[in-house]
């Protein structure tokens, strides 16, 4: 009974603090403090700092600021223009035409950046005006972009996966590898949707693009080669075991600095802006992680996670039913919170549950990312919607409506992951050099 009582108090304080717009990291600390004072006799403050210090100075966490920095550097280069120019010649041949640059651009940028907002901005900055100019329907431009930008969270490097890996003490390299195939499958689903639109809504097709010779196509896309090299170096070095996730991130930072130098877009301004931007984002995530670390300590003392895990166990839920319940749970949570916070907030409870149910935690990380991605494009709180609103001046409700088919495809992706879990688990189990 104590657990039930404790749960009620935790939830109440949590919603009171989060709802009154206290910053998430500090709100979590507040909740944890209340829990410690009410349910344990341990000195709350000392326990808090010990936990926070251990987490904040951990080696695994160092991958986080470096991957953020890498994305920030590339975000400030000419990559935005280059992505569109380089991809357009190849995409024009596909049914659905240049709309595919949204998907391919997001997939490619996702492989150098771990955030979906950055992916969205980089790709959208160029593709929205260009696609509008060519007369593609607005709802397709916005919708496909909103959906595809979520790939930023899935294709490595991914900030959400780093945070997940740090929270549950699993290898970040394995999680990154697990994200690759599901990310590619999801992007093919988006492309299939565009192809479907091309054949079903014939009257909406814009004028076909003038044809180009192969030589011209290569000439246009030569700028993409350095980016591709960077992508393969970063991901390849992890796959072949040459570098840990953190080292791969360091290579990524150096590589993107070199890339920016070659493009002549590396000035002192862009360098310091990227560094300061990365510092801010990494501090934001660090504060949330600290709050979450203290909260899981406090919850551990109350015994809620264990009680919940054994309760789930007695219910004899099949893993599939558990996954279905968790999908709904995360979708609802994601309506009010951003993805990172909902991961760190729930892992203390959910981790023992899934381990008890015998679900692979690496697979679960990928599942979680897909569900959270979906929540990024559902109102009222969806980061991608906010970013797109800023870029296009459309109403949130309009943008959300255009993204509905994408939400459907992402839910389909969840089903695919459940039916073929190997999609996520095969690559991490076959990493070289272990």
């Amino acid at each position, binding site marked *: 009974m104590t657990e039930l009582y404790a749960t009620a108090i935790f939830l109440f304080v949590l919603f009171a603090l989060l709802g009154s717009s206290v910053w998430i990291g500090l709100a979590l600390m507040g909740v944890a403090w209340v829990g410690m004072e009410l349910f344990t006799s341990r000195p709350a403050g000392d326990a808090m*700092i010990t936990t926070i210090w251990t987490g*904040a100075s951990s080696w695994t966490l160092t991958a986080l600021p470096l991957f953020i920095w890498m994305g920030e550097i590339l975000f400030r280069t000419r990559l935005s223009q280059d992505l569109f120019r380089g991809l357009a010649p190849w995409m024009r041949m596909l049914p659905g035409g240049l709309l595919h640059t949204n998907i391919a651009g997001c997939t490619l940028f996702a492989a150098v950046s771990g955030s979906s907002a950055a992916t969205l901005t980089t790709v959208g900055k160029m593709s929205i005006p260009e696609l509008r100019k060519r007369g593609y329907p607005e709802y397709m431009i916005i919708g496909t972009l909103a959906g595809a930008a979520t790939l930023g969270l899935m294709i490595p490097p991914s900030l959400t996966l780093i945070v997940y890996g740090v929270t549950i003490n699993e290898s970040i390299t394995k999680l990154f590898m697990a994200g690759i195939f599901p990310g590619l499958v999801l992007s093919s689903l988006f492309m299939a949707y565009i192809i479907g639109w091309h054949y079903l809504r014939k009257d909406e097709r814009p004028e076909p693009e003038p044809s180009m010779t192969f030589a011209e196509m290569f000439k246009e896309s030569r700028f993409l080669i350095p980016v591709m090299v960077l992508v393969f170096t970063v991901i390849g070095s992890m796959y072949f075991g040459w570098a840990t996730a953190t*080292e791969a991130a*360091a290579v990524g930072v150096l590589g993107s600095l070199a890339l920016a130098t070659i493009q002549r877009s590396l000035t002192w301004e862009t360098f310091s802006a990227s560094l300061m931007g990365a510092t801010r*984002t990494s501090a934001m995530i660090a504060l949330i992680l600290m709050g979450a670390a203290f909260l899981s300590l406090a919850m551990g003392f109350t015994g809620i996670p264990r009680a919940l895990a054994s309760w789930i166990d007695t219910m004899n839920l099949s893993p599939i039913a558990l996954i279905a319940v968790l999908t709904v749970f995360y979708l609802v949570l994601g309506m009010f919170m*951003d993805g990172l916070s909902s991961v760190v907030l729930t892992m203390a409870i959910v981790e023992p549950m899934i381990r008890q149910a015998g679900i692979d935690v690496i697979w679960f990380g990928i599942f979680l990312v897909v569900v959270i991605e979906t929540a990024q494009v559902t109102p009222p709180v969806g980061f991608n919607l906010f970013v797109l609103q800023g870029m296009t001046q459309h109403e949130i409700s309009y943008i959300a409506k255009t993204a509905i088919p994408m939400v459907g495809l992402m839910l389909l992706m969840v089903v695919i992951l459940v039916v073929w879990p190997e999609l996520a688990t095969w690559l991490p189990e076959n990493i070289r050099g272990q």
Partner: protein
Amino acid sequence: MNDWASVLGVPLWGWLFVLPIMVAALCYFFQAPAKRLLTPVWRFLDRLYLASGALAAAFMVIILVIIVLQMIARWSSISFQGSTEFAGYAMAATSFFAFAYALNRGSHIRVSILLNINNFTRKWVDAYAILIAAVTATYFARYAVKTNFMSEILNDRTQGQDQVPEWLLAFVSMFGTWPTNWGELWATVGSEWVYTPVWLPQLPMSLGTILLAIALWDNLFRLLINGESNIKGEAVE
């Protein structure tokens, strides 16, 4: 050990929590004089926040350097002892030093549904949220400082293989004592390398959390005086 022992006859919580709240009340009731008094303080604090952010950025570059050196060392089979610990310390420093700066640039996220209802809630829900956050951050800072002091008193050493030169410890210690003791401090310093005492990497935690608490109280005062806080650019980046 009593965590809230009296300082100058007032328990510590009085200084840390009640006093700032009283100042906030004064700021609200005497807006014009408070503004006159605090404007030079604000100018100083704004520079301090930025400087702390720049320091955090410097530590991020240090993480990069440590990791690159570690890779080079591994390829050339030289040992770089304690590289992972050093990278961890730099990571902590990056996070803690950047807190206040990130706060003022609107980077820390929160659920802003209530905040965005109308102008009244925008001001008063914000004031309430900042107050709660400031109290939490002050508590955080108080225990960070306590832990930092305890590490020093207990002479807590690192669990890893990382070592630092003694002169570095002496140099940092100079800031924690009166100049009259400096001669004595340096007289005992050898040229040895010693296992890192935990208080050294914990210093950024103390300083960063103190600055975060100050920044939050500062924002509360500014909100009550000017009708808007110092948190600018809450746009998604």
